Every structure is written in structure tokens, then in C-alpha cells.
């Protein structure tokens, strides 16, 4: 736990000591703000659905960009050798990095709460429950994509390659339930269950179902587990 914290704070410092975090937060705020306000007054609806619809799309590129450096850069710099030879478990190393990336994503969401205050000022009959579950949903989706990105970063020592692999896997999860018409009927149930958007839309509707929570937790767990395995494989090479 102590080591996990040390890794976490090191990563957070490295995000905020470089332009990375600021660029991410500003652009994230601008893009989500634009898409939210564009339709908010037009449709005259007291909800944040337009925001929750656009954020998964923004994630698609932003999260792999945040996570690409996590492990690939350590390999590239050679600092991986220092990390591995410190008395540090691979699991702490991976989870610490994952949590740092996730924190940055959550910081982006925190900024988008500005729109929620707009809503409380001008809206009527606000469904606070739906806003809460909407945020919960995109936070969980952010966790899944962060875990995927962390895994992608462990596959290579080249950050650009990690970025592309990250986008590719995230895209698969993103598109899965939009491709259902091309899939044999027998498989649609499974594919749909595997898709992030399916669970996201369930939660956003205001229903917190344990099946959805288990889905998010297990996908995050799976990718972090695979990342740890990737680190172990290196030792045997």
C-alpha cells in the first residue's frame, strides 16, 4: 500500500510537472463544454445527457493519450530496470499508475461539474439521480479505458505504438454494441454484454444494477491483471 501510494504520487507529479495534465484538462473542458452548451439551451431540457453522450467519445482519444506513457516510457528510459530491482511488487506498480491516470480523468469530470451548476441555476425538475448515475457511469467507463490504456502501454517501449494500440482496444469496446447487426444472432447477447456502452447506458438511465458494476470491475481487473502478467513475462525473456 505504501509503495502503491509512492508510485501514485510520483505519476501525479509527473503529470502535473509537465504540460500534459494542463493540456488534457483544458482541452477536455473546452470540448465537453462546447458539446454540452450547444444543445442545452436549444433543447430546453433539464438534463445532462448531451454531456454524458459526448464524454465517451472524447475518452476514445484522450485516455490512451494519458496512459500511453505510463509503462512504455519507463521501458524506453530504462527506469523500468530501477523499478523492477526495487523491493516493489508489480501489482503496486501497475495499480499505482492506473489510479494516477484515472485520477486525471476524474479531475476532468470534476471540471465538467460546472455544467451541473449551470443546470441547477436554470433548470427545473432536475433529476438529480440521473445526473449522479450518469457521472458514475462515465467515471466507470473512464476506469475501464484507463485500465485498457495501462495494458497497451505495457506491450511496447514506444509511446506512439502504445497510444495506437490503446485507441484500437478502446475502439473495440466502444463499437461493440454498435456492430450488433453484423453479428450472428446467437452471439449478440454476449457481444452486447461485453460492450462498455451497453452497461453505460443502463447506468445512465438511472439504474444501478450490480451486473453493470461487476462488469466494469471485472474488465478493469482483467486488464490490470494482464498488465502485471506482461511485466512478469519480461523477466523470463
Amino acid at each position, binding site marked *: 500500500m*505504501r509503495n502503491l501510494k509512492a508510485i501514485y504520487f510520483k505519476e501525479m*507529479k509527473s503529470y502535473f*510537472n509537465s504540460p500534459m495534465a494542463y493540456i488534457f484538462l483544458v482541452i477536455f473542458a473546452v470540448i465537453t463544454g462546447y458539446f454540452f452548451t450547444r444543445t442545452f439551451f436549444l433543447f430546453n431540457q433539464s438534463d445532462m445527457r448531451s454531456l454524458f453522450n459526448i464524454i465517451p467519445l472524447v475518452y476514445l482519444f484522450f485516455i490512451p493519450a494519458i496512459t500511453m506513457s505510463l509503462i512504455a516510457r519507463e521501458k524506453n528510459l530504462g527506469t523500468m530496470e530501477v523499478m*523492477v*530491482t526495487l523491493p*516493489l511488487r508489480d501489482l503496486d506498480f501497475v495499480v499505482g499508475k492506473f489510479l494516477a491516470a484515472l485520477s486525471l480523468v476524474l479531475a476532468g469530470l470534476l471540471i465538467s461539474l460546472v455544467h451541473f451548476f449551470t443546470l441547477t441555476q436554470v433548470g427545473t425538475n432536475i433529476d438529480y439521480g440521473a445526473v449522479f448515475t450518469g457521472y458514475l457511469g462515465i467515471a466507470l467507463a473512464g476506469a475501464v479505458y484507463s485500465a485498457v490504456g495501462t495494458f497497451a502501454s505495457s506491450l511496447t517501449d514506444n509511446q506512439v505504438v502504445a497510444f495506437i494500440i490503446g485507441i484500437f482496444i478502446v475502439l473495440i469496446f466502444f463499437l461493440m454494441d454498435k456492430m450488433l447487426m453484423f453479428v450472428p444472432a446467437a452471439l449478440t447477447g454476449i457481444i452486447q454484454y461485453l460492450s462498455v456502452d451497453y452497461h453505460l447506458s443502463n447506468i445512465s438511465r438511472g439504474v444501478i444494477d450490480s451486473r453493470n458494476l461487476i462488469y466494469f470491475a471485472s474488465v478493469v481487473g482483467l486488464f490490470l491483471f494482464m498488465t502485471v502478467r506482461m511485466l512478469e513475462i519480461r*523477466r*523470463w525473456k
Partner: protein
Amino acid sequence: MIKVENLSKFYGDVKAVKSINFELNDGEIVGFLGANGAGKSTTLKVMTGYLTPTTGNVYVNDLDIQSNTLEIQKQIGYLPELNPLYSEMRVYDLLEFTGNIRNITGKAFKNSLARVIEQCGLKGVIHRMVSECSKGYKQRIGLACAMIHDPKILILDEPVTGLDPNQIVEIRNLIKDLGTEKLVLMSSHILQEIQATVNRIIIIHKGEIVADGTNEELMSGFMGNTKLTLEIKNAEDSTVKALTEKIPSISLVDTTTRNGSQILHLEYPKEKDPREELFQYAIDSNWVVTEMSPHSVNLESIFRTLTMEDKANA
């Protein structure tokens, strides 16, 4: 104490280290010497738990590296080759982070920090970014990270590469100081470096240990012939030719001339020193001796013999 037992490491078909054995005792400074690609770094990487051995094992104080990796890593300070550092961190933050992982926090960290700043001479750069530091400082920062927990065992992979002569002397003195109470294993492909710093040398060549012993042991084990250069004037060819008959222990390897002098390159077995006879013979033959200099075997020639012997076949 470190015990390396039948250690092998293969990268696919490449056999980087082939079943090597050695033991290191506390308070020793051991030099690990070999040409580039001889298997030095691979051995060190296995010893520090970065790589898993193909066969064999490494024991540190009777714990084996494969099942007690973390426990052993707590006792070891390791400076990898090329000294990778986080360039975007401040020196202080880097040391604090390393200390945190090593479970050194609060007051204990302050004390450790003061110690490594003193030992490694980091006073001027402690609040600088690592990327702003010179190469010599970076090397010392790496060393400070490896020593923050005051380990009993220090493993340094090429610690002086790329430093200027003054910095080399500083690092060398630091290592010597540390070696009085710690077990230090340092690798290098630079002979003079090893010779000047360590009290025991292990030479590795193509993944195998070809020599292991103190400087003196290695020398005496490699008696061979002593070479002697004799520069003479006024020598008649017949007297030069008769030399080897008169003193049978000497063999004449080569003769050259320079500025009217003759230079004889002679060899004789180390245990039979014929220099007095030679001097007498020179007087008898009316030679004017302008130079007589023996070249005793040095570590360099041992190293070259050990690591070059099969270059001709290759």
C-alpha cells in the same frame, strides 16, 4: 554474502552466461571484468532480480533470488548500466520517492538524505531538476538512489563510464570508502579502473569465468615469460648471435635498429632472472648499453590473453 551457483542465462539461442559459479564475502570490493557483451550486465541483472536465470540460482545470505526476490532487493543497492533516471523529477523528489519505496520516511529519510548528500557530494544540485544536472552529477544521483537505504550490498554496473578523470577518482574513492563495510560488486570493461579500485577481480569471457582472484594472484598465476628490451651500440653481429648460446635461459625474439643502435627484444622465464649475466656478457662483448627495460606481465596482458585467445579462430 552472495553465492552464485551454476548460473546460466540464455536469450533464445544466445547463451549470454554459461553456468558460472562464484562467492562474494562481506567487506569485499569485487571487480567484474569483461569485454562488452561478455555477460557482465546479464549476470548482474539476474543477481538483482531483474531477469530470471535459465538455470542455477543466486543466494544472498542464504535466501534465493527466485523465491525471495523482494527480501533480497531490500538488502541490495543497484546502479544499472547507463544509469537511467527520471529526468523530469527534482533530485530531492527522486530521492524521496526511492526512499518511500524503501520504507524510509520522515526523520529516517532526513538522516539518510543528509548521509547520501554528504557521501555523493550532491549539496549543490539537490533542488535542481535531474535533466539540468551534468553527467557526473547524474552518476552520483544514481549512486545516491542506490545507497539511500544504506544497503549491505552494492551492485554497480559500469559506475564510471562517461565520467571525466577527476570524477572517476571521486567515484573510485567513494567506492573504496564504501567497501570497508559493505560488499561492493562493480563491473567494468576498463582495466585500469578495476585495478585501481577493487581487491578481487573476476574476469568473465563469453559467458564463462576465466579468472578469479586478487590482482597479485592473477599475476602470479600468469607467470609466462618476461619481456626485456635491450638497446645497445657497438655490437658485433657475432656477439649478438652468441648471446643465446652463452645464456640459454634467454631467447631472442626480434632485432631492430634505431639511430644506429640495435634493439634486442628478449624473453626469459620469470623465475630465472638473467639480467646480471646479461650485463656481464655486455661488458665482455664491449657493448654500450643504452637501455635495459623489462616488461613484467600486467593485468592488461592477462586480460588480453584470456579474452582474445580465440579471436584468431573466429
